[in-house]
């Protein structure tokens, strides 16, 4: 394989909203450049994980090297860096962008510019990338490429002739896009002779080889045997292998400035190779890190418990394995009176949470209960110290707490103007603070709100979709902690507090939450032999009460002709059922009741 000069290298990525055809376009590139023969090309080659393919989204970044003979007759090396496609991973997206010089902004000809397109386009512009606007799916019957092109021109402030039109599905226009990458995207800068500086834009764990670090070399070069250091973690290690993606991993002798590839070192722990960190030559001192590094910080938390307590160890092992490949997943053991032993897990966002949950259930065949998600709170205690709380039950003594602050996000929503009223109504219900609103081409409106993250983690996105008949799209970015008028609501079943149902809510919503949760529990807990009061309390004061009446009838009819065996078996079944119940004080609660109340907790808020 010939080594190409730096000026013939093009590093680029594709940014797009979910379902706008990013992976299909990438597959066409692989096919046209002959990187993967067409017959080997399973649909969406780059989305390798089963779950990714199914959901049509990219969770981990992927990179692939392609060779292409351009119209000018010369050979070019194209590195396509496929970025994660969801707002939960926007930090990872931004790091991937810094590994590139150009970005294809892909927009669906029928859907138009979506909130995420806007968000990612701004990220790309901020990263100084050359943007190639492309309208995809022009073969669709309801495609409106002209309007979409106008939208893009307005968004980027570019000329009409810059916009390309393709159908990634049929392949129409795709070759033009590759030519545009060659012509418009500048070659990478950076000197191979300078000291090594490589950006980690992703990493993955291979069970045989340890951590595989995905890097973009900004300066210098790296080869096998070299001692390197990770600046943020301070880890020093020896390079065991360097290589490229074509698209499978292929070892090469060295990587040089401007190139994209992977490093395998002795590191076995993913948390030592953080996305955004800088890899340098261990022998050089005082190297400045590349800008923009951030510690991944989980924003959404939930308790994950095995339905069968015997699965606890398996769950721990599964979480450890997932963490090997997903450094942003955090977990620690947690005990719940109601649910037994489990883990409090931290996620980047809701989608991240769902993906982890699904992988645990699918890849590790675990049957799980997940508590309603909550956000992390910043509390200032009366002694002036600041404590972060990721589980409502940690907030035991309200008297010691001076102030509770909750995380806010800035939400950008794009929607046809007909639905502006619906959006405003929803945002208001969720304590949203209006920021601004702009009219866009094609009767579309871009609305921005500040919103407590807690309001978003429940079902904001689902509500947004259902109230706008699927037309709205959304993006969000964290804004930091804001002081809130928050209280902890506890749920008591016959006087016993049940930790799984405690929640931190805004004071004015405390009654509503308490009342609804008590009512749901009354509906899902089977009647007992005695009356069971179900109460909601704030700081020891009862704010709502429901009463589960005593069970009055549970009796077997006569022993027909002395058939005692049948009766005994029925009672034995009932006896076994009782054994599986969770005891809250003297109240027997079947696992299913907990699960359905927790599910309701996630669905029904505020509606």
């Amino acid at each position, binding site marked *: 394989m010939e080594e190409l000069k730096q000026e013939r290298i093009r590093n680029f990525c594709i940014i797009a909203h979910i379902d706008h055809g990013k992976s299909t376009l990438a597959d066409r590139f692989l096919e046209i450049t002959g990187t993967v023969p067409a017959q080997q090309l399973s649909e969406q080659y780059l989305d390798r994980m089963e779950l990714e393919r199914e959901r049509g989204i990219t969770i981990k970044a992927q990179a692939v090297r392609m060779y292409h003979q351009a119209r000018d007759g010369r050979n070019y090396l194209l590195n396509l860096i496929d970025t994660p496609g969801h707002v939960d991973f926007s930090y990872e997206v931004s790091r991937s962008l810094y590994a590139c010089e150009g970005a294809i902004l892909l927009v669906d000809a029928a859907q138009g510019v979506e909130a995420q397109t806007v968000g990612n386009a701004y990220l790309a512009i901020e990263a100084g990338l050359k943007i190639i606007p492309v309208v995809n799916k022009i073969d669709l019957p309801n495609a409106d490429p002209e309007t979409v092109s106008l939208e893009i021109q307005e968004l980027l402030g570019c000329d009409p002739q810059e916009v390309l039109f393709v159908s990634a599905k049929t392949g129409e226009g795709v070759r033009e896009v590759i030519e545009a990458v060659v012509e418009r995207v500048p070659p990478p800068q950076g000197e191979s002779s300078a000291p090594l500086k490589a950006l980690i834009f992703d990493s993955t764990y291979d069970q045989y080889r340890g951590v595989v670090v995905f890097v973009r070399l900004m300066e210098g070069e790296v080869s096998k045997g070299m001692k390197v250091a990770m600046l943020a973690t301070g880890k020093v290690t020896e390079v065991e292998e360097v290589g490229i993606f074509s698209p499978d991993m292929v070892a090469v002798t060295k990587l040089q400035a401007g190139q994209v590839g992977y490093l395998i070192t002795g590191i076995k722990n993913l948390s030592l190779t953080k996305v955004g960190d800088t890899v340098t030559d261990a022998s050089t001192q005082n190297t400045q890190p590349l800008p923009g590094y951030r510690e991944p910080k989980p924003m959404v938390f939930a308790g994950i418990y095995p339905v069968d307590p015997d699965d606890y160890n398996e769950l721990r092992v599964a979480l450890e394995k997932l963490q090997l490949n997903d450094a942003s997943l955090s977990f620690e053991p947690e005990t719940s009176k109601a649910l037994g032993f489990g883990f409090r897990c931290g996620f980047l966002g809701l989608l991240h949470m769902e993906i982890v949950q699904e992988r645990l259930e699918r890849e590790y065949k675990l049957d799980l209960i997940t508590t309603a998600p909550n956000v992390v709170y910043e509390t200032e205690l009366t002694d002036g110290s600041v404590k972060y709380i990721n589980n409502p039950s940690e907030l035991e003594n309200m008297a010691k707490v001076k102030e509770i602050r909750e995380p806010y996000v800035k939400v950008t929503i794009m929607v046809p103007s007909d639905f502006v009223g619906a959006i405003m109504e929803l945002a208001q219900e969720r304590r949203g603070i209006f920021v601004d609103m702009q009219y866009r081409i094609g009767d579309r409106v871009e609305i921005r709100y500040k919103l407590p993250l807690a309001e978003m983690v429940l079902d904001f996105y689902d509500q947004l979709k259902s109230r706008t008949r699927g037309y709205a799209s959304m993006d969000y970015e964290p804004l930091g902690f804001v002081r809130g008028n928050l209280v902890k609501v506890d749920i008591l079943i016959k006087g016993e507090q049940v930790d799984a149902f405690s929640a931190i809510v805004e004071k004015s919503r405390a009654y509503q939450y308490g009342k609804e949760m008590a009512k749901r529990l009354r509906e899902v807990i089977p009647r007992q032999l*005695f009356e069971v009061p179900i109460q909601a309390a704030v700081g020891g004061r009862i704010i709502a009460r429901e009463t589960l009446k005593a069970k009055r*009838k549970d*009796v077997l009819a006569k022993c027909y002709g*002395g058939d005692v065996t049948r009766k005994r078996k029925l*009672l*034995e079944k009932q006896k076994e059922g009782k054994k599986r119940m969770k005891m809250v004080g003297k109240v027997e609660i079947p696992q299913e009741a907990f699960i359905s109340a927790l599910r309701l907790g996630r669905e029904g808020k505020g509606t």
Partner: protein
Amino acid sequence: MRLYLHIPFCVRKCPYCDFHSVVADEETKSLYINALMNEIDLLKRVFKSMGEEILSLYFGGGTPSIYPPAELGRIIRFCKRELTVAREAEITVEINPGSWKKKELIEAARMGFNRLSIGAQSFDPETLRILGRNHTHLDVLRLAKSAMDLDRFDVNLDLIYGVPQQTLATWRQTLEMAVGVKPHHLSIYALNIPEGSEMDRKAEEGAWRMPAEDEIADMYDLACRLLGKAGYHHYEISNFALPGKECAHNIAYWERSAYIGIGSGSHSFLPSRLRWSNLKNISTYINTVNGDMLPVEHLEFLTREEAWEEEVMLSLRMSRGLDLCALEEFKNMRVLSDTIDGWQREGLVWRKGGRLGLSERGMLVSNQIIASLLGG
């Protein structure tokens, strides 16, 4: 020793029934009677080895009254000839209103029957219609009156509550009419709709108003109150009797004394741990017995714990309750005592003279209490 005879035939199947009964032709019915006598013959040595008199005979079903009294009488005669039947033995037959009339009742008395259990179910036309019974409330009333007027029988009426569309008011009427007949004994059952039965399907369709748990409990409370006032003693969860008129045969089931069931699908028990049941398929049953083979389908020798579970479960059905010593055999009373105290405070159980029993309210939730005792 008790003898149960199962007649698995019905004129038609009731929509709520999941017991062993079929609609059959005349020839099968006649073959079946002979088979019953053959089975008794086969078991003669078992009866002899038990060395006890037969204290009660009970013809149950299905619908025994699908046969004329004389046919059933043949079996009684056969038993009296081949086995040792006590002179005062209680001999019961279950009859459906609309099958036997006054004439047949006189005949039945002549055959030696001294107890009638009438499947009245209700005196309310609407309830009878929903239960799919082929008799009217007038048939019920007429038959019950004839039975009482003859003065040759102890009479029981079976009544059902918790039926779709039934209300507390129509149930009260049924109870009052039943009490008006002054039977010696009343059996009051909560309707259980078996899953997948015709009635279950109809209920699913939503065509009926289904009584809620509380309403059914109210019906039960009403029955307890009205029957208590009329002098009936609530001696078992579902059974009420005038003093001395309890059903001796059924009490044997709950006290775990010996009984042998004859006929297809019948059940037998020899204390303290042997139970078996007969073949359910009628022609297989007939062929097996006629080939001089025992028609046993399932036989089990209970473990000591299973026997104990039965003891707890059956004793607590009776108003006399359970000897607490029996509980201690398998359970840690220190742990259970707390639970039992809780029930006592709720008025569900009583404790007296070393015995534990269910109150009337406790009886209605007996499954919960028994399952807790067995599980605790």
